């Protein structure tokens, strides 16, 4: 049996600090919040986008529109797989034309999700710019995509799985990496995390 190997990368405080720092960096780069809109990629990117909007409101006193986006219809492998993804709603209830769009996701990996998201945003209109904010950048890019704002850079092997768990969906705040060779499903890892079996180093 493969030995369980889950490393904790960020805890609740680390995640909160990273989101505050990203919020400050976004404001600094864009000289304020007037032209900003946030679009979070479902599921956890959307939760992070809402938190960034809350932090920016605390700092600048400005409420930034937040949109949600499901990118599955724009995936380049959507009909080459037998499994159909469950499509969720895309809700961008504001005009992106001439705005600085901050695209938010939890983990940046190959870049294909971001490619799909860029295509979709452009279908809504022509923004002034699109900037990318991610909580975790784990490398292994397959497309020339680079984030503008990063919570934490984490070197991983390609077979590792980085899992972000947030209070809104998962009832806990943690980022873990399940090391390669481990064949557990995300739900099994979640169960192991709940039972306190956290192996590895922080």
């Amino acid at each position: 049996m493969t030995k369980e190997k889950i490393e904790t990368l960020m805890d609740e405080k680390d995640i909160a600090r990273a989101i505050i720092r990203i919020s400050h960096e976004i404001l600094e780069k864009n000289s304020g919040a007037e032209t900003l809109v946030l679009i979070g990629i479902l599921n956890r990117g959307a939760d992070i986008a809402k938190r960034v909007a809350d932090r920016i409101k605390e700092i600048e006193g400005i409420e930034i529109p937040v949109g949600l986006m499901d990118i599955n219809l724009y995936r380049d492998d959507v009909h080459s797989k037998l499994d159909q993804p469950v499509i969720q709603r895309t809700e961008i209830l504001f005009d992106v034309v001439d705005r600085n769009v901050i695209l938010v996701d939890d983990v940046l990996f190959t870049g294909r999700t971001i490619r799909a998201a860029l295509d979709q945003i452009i279908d809504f209109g022509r923004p002034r710019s699109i900037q990318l904010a991610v909580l975790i950048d784990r490398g292994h890019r397959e497309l020339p995509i680079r984030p503008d704002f990063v919570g934490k850079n984490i070197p991983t092997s390609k077979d590792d799985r980085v899992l972000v768990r947030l209070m809104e969906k998962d009832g806990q705040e943690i980022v873990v990496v399940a090391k390669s060779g481990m064949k557990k499903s995300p739900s099994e890892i979640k169960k192991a995390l709940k039972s306190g079996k956290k192996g590895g180093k922080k």
Partner: protein
Amino acid sequence: MQLRSRHLLGLEDATAEEITLILDTAETFREIIERPIKKVPTLRGITVLNLFYEPSTRTRISFELAEKRLSADTVSFTPGTSSVKKGESLRDTVQNIEAMKIDMVVVRHSSSGVPYFLTQCTQSNIINAGDGAHEHPTQALLDMFTIRRKYKKLKDLRVVLVGDIKHSRVVRSNIWGLKTMGASVAVCGPSTLLPFEVEKFGVDIFTDLDKAIDGADVVNIMRIQLERQQAGLFPSQREYTNLFGMTRERLQLLNKNYTIMHPGPINRGVEITNEVADGDSSVILEQVTNGQAVRMAVLFLLSGKKEEE
């Protein structure tokens, strides 16, 4: 949750979970057709054949637009200008077109069972766009989608299907779909336009419209299929209108938040008056818009499926 079959032949065997999946997915596509750019790249590289052996405006255009908005390549087939005129069989026609590498076939035919037949002689995903008097599943799905958007549910709603029950494939698909989703369904029409052993549908049966619609939430009015009325199944259009026409006076019998539906094309002044068809509670044009979203959902959900599970 996934659809069990790689084809959509009808709703008779569809489960509530499958219908819910299609309707939920259609919500996403409804949002897409409201966008400035009403197109997603989802079915890029997929080729869809629209095989319409019967005249159709709404369904054909709706499917074509749905396919184009999903970025599929489309081919439309018209029997009047094809080798069908030279006596080529349906099987040969489809197999020859499929040899040109078709992935999906949307078929309408005057004979019941043609979509099933195509599943036996081709590899493509088959979508039934109406087969004889059998089923018209995407119409029933769009009807259910329209009702669900208004009432936020289908369960326990009272839906009355009025008109030519005997010849209507829309009625059959609606009965099976609505019953599966927990709605209370009734049919109403002249006894000559009720099918043999209509009681086997397991719905309330009426030949008196006023009794049928008393307390109903939704009235879905079927077209009197004048092209199928050669046998004189009712004495005159005027008598039909008096007994089964949906008029403003009859609206008073319905529940307060009622809905009027019609799959079209409408025979204005026959099965429905102008003021009812164009009234505030009529969702006839909404049905047409929703049809595109539902067809996009069906095409999307079937497109990735190569094998039966």
